[in-house]
């Protein structure tokens, strides 16, 4: 008898972390049920499945919850071994990808967050940090794209592609709200062309929320953060 493969994803449409998981599931052709969570009123299920952090995304596979987007991505890759492989098999290549994944996930994401949620001097400092890290990333990614121009399709997308898209896919919305460029074709030509290549893929396009919705969300996050500082 075939074992029922029940996959549910609890997420939030604008969350970069949820986006990562959705993309991975779509790339691997894994059918799933999506449950949209209202972050101000989390469902009992989310609280039950993620009692430690009470956050989305939560992937529930045959009743067992997996949390933290990077951990979910690794779990997906280890459980569904069909192409595209999100991580290399070779331990050293894998370690390199995980190193940069951590850099994107922690350092760049935090810097990006600070740029969005601050103004004045604090924002200037955060922007400087972000640009410095982008330079480091640009340099680091050269070995992953030896030809210079990323050539990506639905068959060869991997973990770093997913993280890059989730973080910088909404760059136009960021630019509109912040009135400045985050990734810049002049400053970061490789990274910029990488994001361009990613946003053109059909599987990515169908996962991308409408521009106006993204702008409204970034605006909301920014205003919320700035107001709470003024208290």
């Amino acid at each position: 008898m075939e074992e029922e493969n029940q996959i549910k994803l609890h997420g939030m449409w604008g969350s970069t972390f949820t986006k990562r998981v959705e993309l991975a599931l779509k790339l691997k052709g894994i059918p799933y049920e999506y449950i949209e969570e209202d972050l101000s009123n989390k469902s009992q299920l989310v609280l039950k499945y993620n009692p430690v952090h009470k956050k989305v995304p939560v992937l529930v596979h045959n009743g067992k919850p997996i949390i933290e987007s990077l951990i979910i991505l690794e779990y997906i890759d280890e459980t569904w071994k069909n192409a595209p492989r999100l991580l290399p098999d070779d331990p050293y290549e894998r370690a390199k990808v995980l190193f940069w994944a951590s850099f994107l996930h922690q350092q760049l994401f935090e810097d990006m967050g600070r740029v969005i949620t601050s103004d004045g001097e604090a924002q200037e400092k955060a922007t400087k940090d972000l640009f410095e890290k982008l330079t480091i990333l640009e340099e680091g990614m050269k070995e992953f794209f030896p030809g210079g121009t990323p050539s990506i399709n639905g068959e060869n997308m991997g973990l770093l592609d997913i993280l890059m898209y989730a973080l910088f896919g909404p760059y136009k919305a960021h630019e509109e709200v912040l009135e400045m460029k985050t990734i810049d074709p002049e400053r970061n030509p490789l990274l910029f062309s990488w994001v361009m290549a990613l946003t053109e893929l059909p599987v990515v396009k169908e996962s991308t929320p409408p521009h106006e919705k993204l702008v409204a969300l970034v605006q909301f996050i920014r205003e919320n953060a700035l107001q709470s500082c003024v208290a």
Partner: protein
Amino acid sequence: MAEEVKLFGMWASPFSRRIEVALKMKGIQYEYIEEDLSNKSPSLLNYNPVHKKVPVLLHKGKPVAESLVILEYIDETWKQNPILPADPYEKAMARFWAKFLDEKLWPAAKKVVLSKGEEHKGLIEEIQEHLKTLESELKEKKFFGGESLGFVDIAANIIFWLLVVQETLGLDILTEDKFPGLHEWNHRLLDDAVFKECVSMERLLASFKVRFGALTASK
């Protein structure tokens, strides 16, 4: 022919010590290079140009950085005495707890040393919340890894650094009555032949007393 394995580390860094535990558990021969963090070697800066930190593992000339990434690399390369579970779900759980330790417990434990007044009280409460979470994850198990020492136990070495801070500053954070499970687990780890070689409690205590002992007066 022995494969060349080198570890750039620092004796007082729990992240560096984790790697030593893993290498010793698997019986891997390695050369250890002690780094002076105030005067980092050109090799270290060359092998970890992005973060310029220890630990860095060098295997056949190729560097691996970030302690949890190194632990996974070691486990995938040398298959004896596995550190991570084989089952993807159990593996995901192990990774979750290791991240929890590094992203929640460690930052609070670091901050508590120099904190004062309300912030200090708040941090102690926060640390104890995290310890409660860990205590309930440990439950009746011998180790976080079950019957034998695993990935989470190795990552949880930072709890020993917390105990050193606790003793140096005369604080009551992780006590036997509040956290009996973790208390027992501590003892089991300190009894483990490999683990106890890689923690140097007395040396840490002496070093912390020199650096932070004066802080007990100002509390």
